[in-house]
């Protein structure tokens, strides 16, 4: 790595057993054209700080483990390259709006609980209840295209780190979970809309969103959560009007 360029990388450290609060540590990391932020962190761990902790797994933007703040913007470390920051300094911090567990590791259990809460699976209609497992549900290409984009989420948490509403109200269900809720609601094989409406239409559901739109900006999988949430608002408002005329 003789001809490599050098980048100054400042990393947020936090060791719960000895630190009262996080602190910054700066390293000179050599890089070439293909070096990702994740590889730079490996370099720091191998050469300077063996105790540096961060989450990672697939190294190809599939697992959603390595979400972190790069120069204040939520990114997947594996999908962010040092070449794009040439001539600038780089700061790496844990994902915002989540409790910091250690160094760059955050506790995303709140996000996981919210995803579980909105029942992200197909709830069959009563008439399909006894459908044999060997029989398929029919779906047209358009019916699939309707939700396909919203099904690409990898639960990396970048949208939660980008969301000012989640920052000030941790009860807000948040971009990823609401997007998944909408994704199942509009799936023609699903009949769980009425069950999920409790979460969709609640104050901490779609109406907790003020359409900042930054979640869609930072989403590494181009899911566009802001779009799903606005469409969710249309659905929630429609449900409300229908209920006015058709009380149970």
């Amino acid at each position, binding site marked *: 790595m003789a001809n490599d360029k050098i980048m100054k990388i400042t990393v947020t450290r936090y060791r*719960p057993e000895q630190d009262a609060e*996080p602190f910054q540590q700066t390293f000179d990391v050599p890089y070439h054209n293909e070096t990702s932020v994740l590889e730079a962190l490996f370099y720091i761990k191998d050469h300077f700080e063996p105790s540096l902790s961060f989450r990672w797994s697939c190294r190809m933007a599939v697992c959603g483990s390595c979400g972190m703040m790069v120069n204040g913007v939520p990114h997947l470390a594996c999908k962010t390259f040092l070449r794009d920051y040439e001539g600038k300094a780089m700061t790496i911090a844990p994902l915002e709006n989540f*409790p910091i567990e250690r160094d760059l590791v955050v506790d995303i259990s709140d996000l996981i609980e919210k995803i579980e809460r909105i029942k992200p699976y197909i709830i069959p209609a009563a008439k399909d209840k006894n459908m044999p497992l060997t029989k398929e549900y029919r779906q047209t290409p*358009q019916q699939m*295209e309707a939700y396909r984009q919203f099904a690409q989420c990898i639960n990396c948490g970048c949208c939660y780190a980008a969301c000012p509403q989640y920052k*000030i109200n941790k009860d807000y269900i948040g971009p990823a979970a609401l997007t998944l809720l909408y994704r199942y609601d509009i799936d023609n094989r699903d009949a769980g809309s009425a069950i999920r409406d409790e979460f969709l239409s609640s104050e901490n559901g779609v109406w907790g969103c003020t359409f900042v739109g930054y979640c*869609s900006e930072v989403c590494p999988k181009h899911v566009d959560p802001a*779009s799903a949430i*606005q469409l969710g608002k249309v659905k929630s408002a429609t449900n409300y009007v229908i209920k006015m005329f058709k009380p149970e």
Partner: protein
Amino acid sequence: MSADNTFRKPYVPKVEASWWLKNPFFTRYIIREGTSLVSLFVCLELLLGVFCFALSDAHGDVYLAYVNGFLGNIVIILLNLVALASCLFHAVTWFALMPKAVRLFMNKNSTELLPGYVPHIGLYLALVGATLVILVAAFVTM
């Protein structure tokens, strides 16, 4: 695992009041939301006008005083210009977001979505149309 042998101590950073200054995207968002304060001023101004108009029958020139004295004031004129600019800023940023709330397919069988620029341009046409209607109505009744 018992509580005795864990070093877990999750750190929750405080939310700073200046969080929206750290990222230009958030700053733009707060400015967009802040335009509502200027809109509030315009609403109160119009409301005052309605009250003055209602009072003019009994007290002759209350409405005229409102038009000449209040609306004619250079400070109020400047504030109204600021209100117009901020309203346009809100409209432009809001229109840019609106295509996200529209998701329609080109036809019954297509998997192709209606391009985002259709609702975007549509909103601008609606803005121009509404402005023309108001201006024409204002000049016709003058």
